[in-house]
């Protein structure tokens, strides 16, 4: 199974490495733009965002320190913003990979091999997750790292390491959640992939984006909620859905083969 995961990852990287790097760069540029604007003129931020950032500053940072709103944005909301972007990337990667497998009928070659149906489905889902997380890492390097290095080295910000870890791992979990679920849904309902204009495709995209947008909204609206609670909830839900979907993989891939043949 690990061989298949490695092969799929290598293959997608070979086919699409430019897109996989360019996309994070583009989003990193957008993120940097927002940070710069919020640093230059915080009054441009909406009222709710500003009050949310102020509450986060009160809760997470020493009141005696002079922490600016844009710094709070980078360290708190920034990660959730990245979670939204990671969701978009995870959705795109998963749909692209499965579309290719179905279009070229390579999935049938896998199924005719000794790999069990469940392993084939799980390998595809995990390969997609790995690619999504890799993209998240690129995204973080291009967008957050310069800001964080600046904040750690040249500002008097003090930030609890645990919060750091949680906020950093959160977009990862979201990426994992989206890529696994989108992969399985696409294998169950491959007809969704036939047209990007179809209702099914749009609904799937909305479903993929929903968790991160909901979390971003919750964090912004209720800053007193601990990010760890959300992270644990999302990861538990991911594992649960993954188990249920893997269990029914035979049905999913049978559907894929049937629909692909029509």
């Amino acid at each position, binding site marked *: 199974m690990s*061989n*298949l995961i490695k*092969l799929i990852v290598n*293959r997608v990287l*070979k*086919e*699409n490495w430019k897109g996989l790097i360019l996309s994070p760069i583009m989003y990193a540029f957008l993120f940097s733009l927002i940070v710069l604007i919020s640093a230059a003129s915080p009054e441009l931020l909406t009222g709710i965002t500003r009050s949310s950032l102020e509450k986060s500053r009160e809760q997470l940072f020493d009141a005696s320190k002079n922490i600016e709103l844009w710094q709070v944005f980078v360290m708190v909301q920034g990660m959730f913003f990245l979670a939204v972007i990671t969701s978009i990337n995870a959705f795109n990667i998963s749909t692209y990979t499965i579309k*290719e497998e179905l*279009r*070229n*009928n*390579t999935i*049938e*070659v896998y*199924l*005719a*091999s*000794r*790999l*069990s*149906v469940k*392993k084939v489905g799980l390998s595809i889902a995990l390969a997609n997750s790995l690619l999504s997380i890799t993209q998240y890492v690129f995204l973080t390097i291009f967008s957050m790292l310069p800001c964080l290095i600046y904040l750690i080295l040249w500002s008097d910000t003090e930030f609890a390491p645990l919060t750091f870890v949680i906020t950093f791992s959160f977009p990862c979990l979201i990426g994992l959640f989206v890529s696994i679920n989108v992969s399985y849904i696409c294998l169950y309902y491959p007809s969704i992939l036939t047209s990007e204009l179809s209702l099914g495709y749009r609904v799937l995209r909305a479903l993929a984006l929903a968790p991160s947008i909901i979390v971003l909204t919750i964090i912004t609206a209720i800053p007193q909620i601990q990010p760890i609670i959300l992270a644990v909830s999302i990861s538990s839900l991911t594992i649960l859905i993954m188990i249920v979907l893997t269990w029914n993989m*035979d049905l999913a891939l*049978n559907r894929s*083969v*049937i629909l692909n*043949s029509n």
Partner: protein
Amino acid sequence: MTERWITGLIKINSLDIGYKKNIVSRNINLEIGTGISLFFGKNGTGKTTFFRTLTGIMLPLNGNIYYDGDKLRDGSIVKDDISILTHKSGLYSNLTIRENLDYWKSFYRNNLSTITEALLREFDLNNITDRVVRTLSKGQTQKLAIIRSLIPNVKYIFLDEPLNGLDVKSKIKFSEILYELKKNKTILISTHGFSDFDIENSNKFIFYNQTIEPYGKVVSEIWGDSIYIEITMGNKIPQEVLKEFNIDEIGECTYSCSFESKVMKDKFYNKINGLDIISVKTTENQLKSILSD
């Protein structure tokens, strides 16, 4: 002696194939041994579904499939000995020929055949291995798909309509390769054309009446004892012989006739004894009648 001792045998018991409630073929009982087995059938009779079920891509609705006595199951070890050429190519369209071959070699890892490079040369693909698959013609893609299916060194090879898109020269080459490969291998080929295969040296099966039967059985079921022949002579058959046996002249020194029994056929051969017989076809037209849509 148990079946386990017989290598390359596929045994199919009471197999129903199809999709959920839609049974495509039912109660298939066959034994397929080493060599080439041709499966003839019209479009939509279930050739692809049959191959998918036999290779474990799809689950059978009923019945069992045994490879050398081992039952085919999801993930079972017998699948290490199976390779399939599917209806679509099974190639990644955004990778080059070489990358595709390397990909599938890595997938099968320890079980590789040594003929890949020779096949690339045979099919004239050896000079364009850096071409991306989506830029290849249909014929070139099909050739590469055939090579892909022959990468693993396996006992059972399933080729679903392998000649689709191939030109005449490539079909001949493919046939040569195939009959070279058939030693110690069980090769199953689905097709709705038969003129490109050496049907006399192959096992023949036919999709008929929602099941799969040995070709000979179907032919005798349809025609009983009557025998159809198409014969090409070096010179003309005398008119009185044509009249006696109700023979049609269908071309220059080419005749067709249905004999009610083997005795009649032998009588006819006695009559033309001494004349120059160039060729006799008996099966092709019978197959054509069954397979014509």
